[in-house]
């Protein structure tokens, strides 16, 4: 298993996205960069984002965009994590009608590879099973 990019998420049974929090303005961003995209400060600390959040917007992608070799259709949306960050994400649910606003969603890691080569690990959010 290789990650689609280093430094995006922790692995294991309870994975987390790795963002960063600005020491100057306190705001969080993802993926972590070494400067704050809100205030430009260069003192930012990596932080794990909450692994559960609320669904804020969603759709499904029906044709593979260039450079993507995983399966289609796939769910795509925005999830709110905590009270101050919204993250763009694939969704494990690809039927928009099965999702609703504010729905609880949990981070999972899954394979976006072409099925032939070694699995390529990326993140998605899945409806939280009650």
């Amino acid at each position, binding site marked *: 298993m290789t990650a*689609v990019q280093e430094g995006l998420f922790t692995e294991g049974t309870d994975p987390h996205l790795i963002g960063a929090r600005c020491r100057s303005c306190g705001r969080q961003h993802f993926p972590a960069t070494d400067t704050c995209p809100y205030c430009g400060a260069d003192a930012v600390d990596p932080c794990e984002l909450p692994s559960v959040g609320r669904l804020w*917007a969603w*759709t499904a992608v*029906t044709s593979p965009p260039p450079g*993507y070799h995983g399966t289609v259709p796939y769910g795509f949306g925005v999830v709110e994590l905590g009270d101050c960050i919204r993250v763009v994400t*694939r969704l494990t649910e690809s039927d928009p009608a099965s999702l609703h606003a504010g729905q609880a969603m949990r981070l999972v890691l899954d394979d*976006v590879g072409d099925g032939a080569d070694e699995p390529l690990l990326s993140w998605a959010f899945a409806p939280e099973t009650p």
Partner: protein
Amino acid sequence: MIGVGVAGVGIHPFGRFPDHTVTDLGVDAVRAALAEAGAATSPQAAFCGTAYGGVASGHRVLGRLGMTGMPIIDVEAGCASGAAALMLAAASIRSGQYERVLAFGIEKMPKGIIRSSFFEPWQEAAGLTATPAYFALRAQRLMSNSGVTEEDLTAVVVKNRRHGSANPDAMFRSEVTAEAVLHSRMVCAPLRLWMLCSPNEGAAAVVLRRADRDWTGVRLRSSVVLSHLPGPVLSESTPLSGSCDDAIPSPTWRAAQAAYGESDLGPGDLDLVECQDTDAARELLAYEELGLCEPGCSPGLIRDGSTAMGGRVPVNASGGLLSKGEPLGASALGQVVELVRQLRGECGSRQVEGARVGLAHTIGRGANTSVVILTR
């Protein structure tokens, strides 16, 4: 304050032209604009907007016309590239630096699948670069915030294709029914194929000149290009995260406010608008951001016909990008060409009667938003 007038405009129809290079398209549009402007308005500098034209795009066009020797600057601002060229051209006249300046935009999409250099390869591999999906998320938010329905999205397409059927420079010149739109393939819910514009090819050119009090032609009253503020997750800057603060103003709203301020005009003064309808929801959102209606009230304008031909403020009388297609670098100046012709009363069966004030709006990768206001 030095005034800026439009001395001439030219356009190469938008569409697909496998037998012509991007330079060919540009030569056509520039020649037409120069012919309208007349020999006395020969430009002292040129700005060329293009996203995919490549190295020295502007020189290749002007070299064919024996018009090099002046400053020729290529500018890129995504779908607002042509507007950025216009803004720089206008600024150089307002400042007194030049009296006559050419702005043009050209585009021909590269062959094969376009992989935007905007994204990193890992973002592609992770499935995070499907452009219509971002449009769809924005559309969904508009539906939930403003009560936009699938019928409203469809009505935008039907309206713009009806308008476009009268525009000989558009790529699609046939009307469509609501039923046909609703039966077109679902690309990314809620957006169906016919609710999305097609990238294509074309060129447009505008010759600007210093306009003193006695100038009776079309005037460029404001020409604003602005980028986004950090925060909104569905900004056209396509960040992978954003804040939960919904009060951060959009770049379109800010650019419109700046343009209204510069021109001493307001949304109530507009006789027609050309706006960014890369998808049907994007047009409705523009109604709110440009102040054509209160926030949350865009469905009213499409339902009561306010933005259709004959309505209070026809939007996309040209047919919009949904009819014309979108040649990135040429798109914004194509809107300006339409407005100039409308303000001159040259638009035949798609003429907005008595049009005196027009606004053009684009938003593209970056994000770059442009708002241009023209008056007669």
